[in-house]
């Protein structure tokens, strides 16, 4: 899989005349988070690019409907998750990872108290993608959302339809599953 090239520090900087200053700020502050979620959830840079464009276009059209009941970041994540899940529904692999049986991962060989060791940063993106692709969708999404420090467990729970306590519980298994699969990609 082609990984996006690193090094464009201001790649998420929108053109100055991008429609409105409000939308421009929205894009500047959130495009990295939304693009990363789409990239790692869909596993394809081109699809992630298209999805990010579509998510922000949808946000542009509906910005006046945002009622402030959630943060803008959470609102954008909601749009992005729905969009990506709709895309995946049409894909042949949607049933491949239906093994969201927690017991399977509870018995995974990896220990969650061991750090993840990375020797080769250059291929890290590919390893992460391969690992995430082997996880149940629920774990993948949860890990990606929890990795965003701007989101609380309450917000993550709202986005995945779980209580904060359930998120914490599943996160333990998701970490374990990730560690077990990540080791195999070395």
């Amino acid at each position: 899989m082609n990984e996006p090239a690193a090094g464009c520090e201001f790649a998420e900087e929108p053109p100055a005349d991008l429609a409105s200053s409000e939308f421009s700020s929205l894009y500047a502050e959130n495009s990295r988070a939304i693009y990363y979620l789409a990239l790692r959830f869909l596993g394809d840079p081109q699809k992630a690019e298209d999805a990010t464009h579509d998510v922000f276009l949808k946000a542009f059209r509906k910005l006046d409907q945002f009622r402030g009941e959630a943060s803008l970041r959470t609102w954008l994540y909601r749009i992005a998750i729905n969009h990506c899940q709709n895309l995946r529904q049409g894909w042949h692999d949607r049933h491949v990872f239906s093994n969201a049986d927690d017991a399977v991962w509870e018995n995974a060989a990896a220990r969650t108290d061991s750090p993840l060791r990375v020797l080769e940063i250059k291929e890290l993106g590919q390893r992460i993608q391969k690992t995430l692709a082997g996880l149940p969708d629920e774990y993948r999404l949860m890990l990606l959302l929890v990795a965003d420090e701007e989101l609380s467990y309450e917000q993550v729970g709202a986005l995945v339809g779980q209580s904060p306590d359930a998120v914490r519980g599943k996160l333990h298994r998701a970490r374990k599953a990730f560690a077990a699969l990540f080791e195999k990609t070395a």
Partner: protein
Amino acid sequence: MKHQTKLSQEQQSRQVGTEHQTQQPAAREFANAEELLRYDAAHTPVPPAIAQRLQKSTGDLPGPKTAWWKRLFGGANR
């Protein structure tokens, strides 16, 4: 609380190996999957083409109206 936990996890991240071992690539350790994903996200640039496409896509549309809560409160972003 969660934020503090995450920050402490960041501090646990460390370079393994020494300055003297220049022949061997330094390994990097991450406390857990989220920390690894956070690192990966920080090093994954957003393609500039998205902003360019958005500029075209939104060019023909009327700008977003101000949300009701911003009209009322003059609004913070979050």
